[in-house]
């Protein structure tokens, strides 16, 4: 009997020792997993892409409506009381904006109250809370996208000390009240669970601590098996052995899954706050905190957007717990419970809204970073996108294309469009549209659709000519007469104006302003096609390797971005600035990895560029884009229409002092659109430019330019009394010397209608669509 007892005891002891050993070994194995996970980066952090930050300063062209749109995009709320961070208040002409703390790639902005005053669509005053003038301030940049890893987990890292204490307390009150007392597992709940489970033979009782939940989320599957539970318990204890309560809690706050948007998983309270309420977590009210805490139990089941009733019920349960735990005044409980959920309609103001622009950003980034770095290192990418400009161009295209289709009796949705807006001096791309549907993220016409540019090549022809001041000036008379070009290996070519009319001698700048074909070909051949092609490339465009005379009428293909680059060099006075979509890339700690700095290169002399720009201003004032000049006379815009064969492509490129825009309208099947540059792209350009705050082109000429009153009919000097005389800029030394004796010569009807009151120019007549633009047809 005794013998038997000892045998049993020994056996039991041996069993126990073996079991404990096995468990111990297994635990060591798990321990390694736990520590490995925590030794590196806890999470793969997607790179975040930011729009430009709005700079505020006195004199900024900005309307109250534009400011309000910007604030709303950033999740600021209008209030009638004294604003707190993330709120603003309108009081007549004066606004109070409580700007949030913001990190920029080149410094940071404190959280502070700003007082703003508007006058005539301009910011006329900017002060801080104590009415001390503020020279310049900027709002935080809008998040416009992320580069996700394969798992597509998105999160905004939240530090424990930045987490509202109420959130932490509410979370612990609901999920794990004994968190600061237990060792990772709560023996009492485990014991209770065990008793129940042994009785039933099933593992139904929960009792998971925060630590266990974290262990489960981090290391384990979501199936409910006993082995998983065992692992979870061991790992929870091990987590607590190695890491502090705060570290575990902070990891939990960032790990917990709180929603889904397509394939993008919303993890952590930091992102959830942005995702559901459109504002940082520090600004959440207790009822909003309660909603997020309640969603931990089941973010899909309690999804406030899809299941608002369940979510509301759950939130109110959490509010009840909070009151019961003394986190809320019990007498205010009903007030909190009566409040609506308050979630925003859209998941995120900026995310996914700008596919064309993000395509460009990602193209550049992928050249310089590998996929893994982009999707895991938490890089911060500061871009140049101006959401306001982007919104305006989207709006204009969406409004204008249906009108154009209707007026030209084209099939619905047959027209396509692409557009690029830049700040020409810095080369920064403010907006990009690659499809008439701005949310479409496929083929990006702004980047990749190379189409014939038509008359947009003419500024390059005339620049090449005006760079020879001894030979060409703005008043040089160019023969608008029939011509035939002999080409080796090709039949002779006789370019035509659209109306088959010939106007005799035309001053050079009028030939450009009215986009006449024959003078352009004549001048182009004079300076040589190769020279014109070289100028196109010098300005940043793309020219064919073996240019033919047909290039002079625009038979060269360019994408809208390439046209933009070319026009930008003209807009910036001959200085070429590479276009930029990215300003800087910072690592997750805010250390700069790359700065994309402003660089310039003088590729053309300022004086001839000024002359071409003058002629392009004449295009807007009195030429093929006169409708634009009538609509926006004060901006002194320069521009050029472009139309191609059979009106398949309609282009417009134009610029003020600080905005440049290129618009293309056409069809993907390359069928005729019945639109000229002036009738298709120009209305879109006009609508956008009218809506954008900007500065007029400066009237001053660069050094080396002199102004001479010129008789346009002879190209000679004249007095102001001469009816056909205008003041024209010349490169010093190139102005005409001889006097015309104007007055004896009858003014030509075509010439300078503006000089003779009541005269109707051929090009700027009463027709909305310029007749001469109509002529602007390419002969292949």
């Amino acid at each position, binding site marked *: 009997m005794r013998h038997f007892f000892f045998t049993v005891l020994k056996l039991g002891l041996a069993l126990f020792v073996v079991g404990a050993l096995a468990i111990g070994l297994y635990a060591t194995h798990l321990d390694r997993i736990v520590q490995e996970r925590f030794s590196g980066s806890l999470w793969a952090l997607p790179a975040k892409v930011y729009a430009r930050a709005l700079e505020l300063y006195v004199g900024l062209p900005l309307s109250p409506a534009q400011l309000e749109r910007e604030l709303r995009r950033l999740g600021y709320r209008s209030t009638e009381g004294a604003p*707190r961070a*993330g709120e603003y208040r309108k009081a007549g002409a004066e606004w109070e904006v409580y700007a949030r703390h913001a990190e920029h790639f080149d410094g940071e902005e404190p959280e502070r109250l700003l007082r703003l005053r508007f006058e005539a669509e301009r910011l006329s005053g900017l002060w801080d809370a104590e009415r001390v003038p503020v020279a310049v301030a900027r709002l935080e940049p809008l998040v416009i996208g992320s580069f996700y890893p394969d798992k597509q987990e998105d999160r905004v890292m939240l530090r424990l000390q930045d987490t509202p204490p109420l959130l932490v307390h509410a979370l612990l009150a609901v999920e794990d009240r004994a968190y600061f007392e237990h060792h990772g597992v709560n023996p009492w709940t485990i014991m209770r669970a065990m008793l129940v489970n042994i009785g039933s033979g099933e593992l139904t009782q929960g009792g998971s601590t925060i630590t266990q939940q974290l262990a489960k989320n981090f290391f384990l599957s979501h199936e409910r098996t006993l082995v998983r539970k065992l692992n979870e318990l061991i790992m929870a204890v091990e987590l607590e052995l190695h890491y502090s309560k705060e570290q575990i809690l902070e990891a939990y706050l960032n790990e917990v899954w709180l929603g889904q948007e397509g394939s993008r998983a919303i993890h952590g309270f930091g992102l959830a706050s942005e995702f559901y309420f459109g504002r940082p977590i520090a600004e959440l009210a207790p009822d909003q905190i309660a909603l997020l805490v309640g969603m931990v139990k089941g973010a899909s089941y309690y999804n406030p957007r899809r299941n608002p009733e369940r979510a509301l019920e759950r939130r109110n349960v959490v509010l009840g717990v909070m009151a019961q735990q003394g986190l809320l005044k019990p007498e205010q409980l009903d007030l909190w419970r009566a409040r609506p959920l308050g979630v925003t309609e859209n998941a995120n103001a900026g995310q996914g809204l700008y596919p064309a622009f993000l395509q460009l950003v990602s193209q550049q980034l992928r050249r310089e970073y590998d996929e893994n770095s982009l999707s895991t290192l938490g890089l911060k990418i500061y871009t140049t996108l101006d959401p306001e400009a982007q919104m305006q161009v989207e709006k204009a295209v969406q409004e204008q294309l249906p009108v154009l289709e209707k007026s030209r009796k084209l099939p619905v949705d047959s027209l396509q469009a692409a557009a690029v807006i830049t700040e020409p001096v810095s080369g920064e791309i403010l907006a990009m549209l690659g499809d008439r549907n701005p949310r479409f993220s496929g083929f990006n016409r702004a980047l990749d659709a190379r189409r014939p540019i038509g008359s947009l090549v003419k500024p390059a022809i005339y620049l090449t000519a005006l760079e020879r001041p001894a030979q060409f000036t703005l008043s040089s008379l160019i023969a608008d007469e029939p011509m035939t070009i002999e080409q080796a290996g090709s039949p002779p070519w006789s370019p035509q104006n659209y109306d088959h009319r010939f106007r005799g001698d035309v001053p050079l700048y009028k030939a450009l302003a009215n986009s006449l074909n024959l003078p352009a070909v004549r001048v182009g051949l004079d300076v040589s096609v190769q020279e014109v092609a070289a100028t196109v490339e010098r300005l940043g465009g793309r020219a064919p390797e073996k240019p033919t005379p047909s290039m002079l009428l625009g038979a060269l293909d360019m994408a809208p971005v390439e046209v933009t680059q070319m026009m930008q060099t003209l807009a910036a006075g001959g200085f070429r600035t590479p276009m930029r979509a990215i300003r800087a890339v910072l690592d997750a700690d805010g250390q700069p990895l790359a700065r994309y700095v402003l660089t310039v290169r003088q590729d053309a002399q300022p004086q001839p560029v000024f002359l071409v720009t003058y002629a392009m201003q004449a295009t807007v004032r009195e030429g093929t884009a006169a409708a634009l000049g009538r609509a926006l006379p004060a901006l002194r815009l320069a521009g050029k229409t472009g139309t191609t064969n059979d009106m398949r492509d309609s282009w417009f490129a134009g610029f003020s002092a600080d905005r440049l825009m290129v618009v293309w309208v056409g069809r993907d099947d390359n069928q005729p659109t019945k639109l000229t540059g002036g009738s298709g792209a120009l209305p879109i350009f006009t609508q956008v430019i009218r809506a954008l705050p900007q500065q007029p082109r400066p009237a001053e000429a660069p050094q080396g330019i002199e102004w001479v009153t010129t008789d346009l009919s002879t190209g000679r000097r004249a007095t102001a009394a001469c009816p056909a005389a205008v003041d024209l800029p010349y490169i010093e030394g190139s102005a005409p010397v001889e006097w015309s004796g104007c007055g004896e010569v009858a003014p030509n009807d075509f010439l300078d209608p503006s000089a003779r009151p009541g005269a109707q120019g051929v090009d700027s007549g009463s027709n909305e669509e310029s007749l001469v633009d109509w002529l602007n047809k390419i002969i292949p």
Partner: protein
Amino acid sequence: MTYNSMKNNRFLIILIAGGLLSACATTPAPSIYKGGQASKPAPTVDENAPVVRALSAPGFKETPLQAKPLPAKPLSSYAPSALAPSTPMTPGVDYAQSATSAAGAQANTQISTQANIQANAGVAAASNQINSAKSMTTAKLDSGVGQVNQATASANKAAGTLALPAASLSGSPAARQLASSADAAMARGDLTASAASLERALRIEPNNAGLWSRLAEVRLRQGDTVQAEQLALKANGLAGGDAALRSRNDQIVAQARGR
């Protein structure tokens, strides 16, 4: 539920208990943070545990454990406001790590500067020829992927001897403030910050010649003679009748060309 599976489950549950017991018996008890005890020192990582580099992910600063222990007592109540959702709490924001500095980028910067000082008998002052290759700052990503930084590295010391007349401070208050903070950054040798301020100012006033001239000087000091020259030319194109500024720009061009 069959008898067998029940037995199986019971055995496992006993094993859990055994495992937990053995774990407790073999490892020292962890130090546990008791919420709310203000005097409690920061919890430490168990010394017996293998070396752990705790919680350091990008953007994830290790929690300073001494900071702000969670109050054990319930917080004061939060009053709902009838009009707008109020935010009773604004946690202290740690500004410490966010300031952008050139330090990180410059840490692994390779500077290739060759400064020759040529005494020119015809000219009273010796002009500095900063004949520096456009130096590239290479920053490494954590993943080991090299990334070329376009910011040109500095040839600070050589440029320290530059003697350019100060550019006038004109324009709007915003441009003037940014220009003067650029000047201050340049004075303390932070050329990256100086250039950033100037670019910001140029976005506000793209035709301000003084800003372009300053940016040219920054690039000259950084040894980027190509950009220094181009920017000075750009400044000259906008300088109009400002003779002092034109002369300053001409000096930059001359120094950049090494004449």
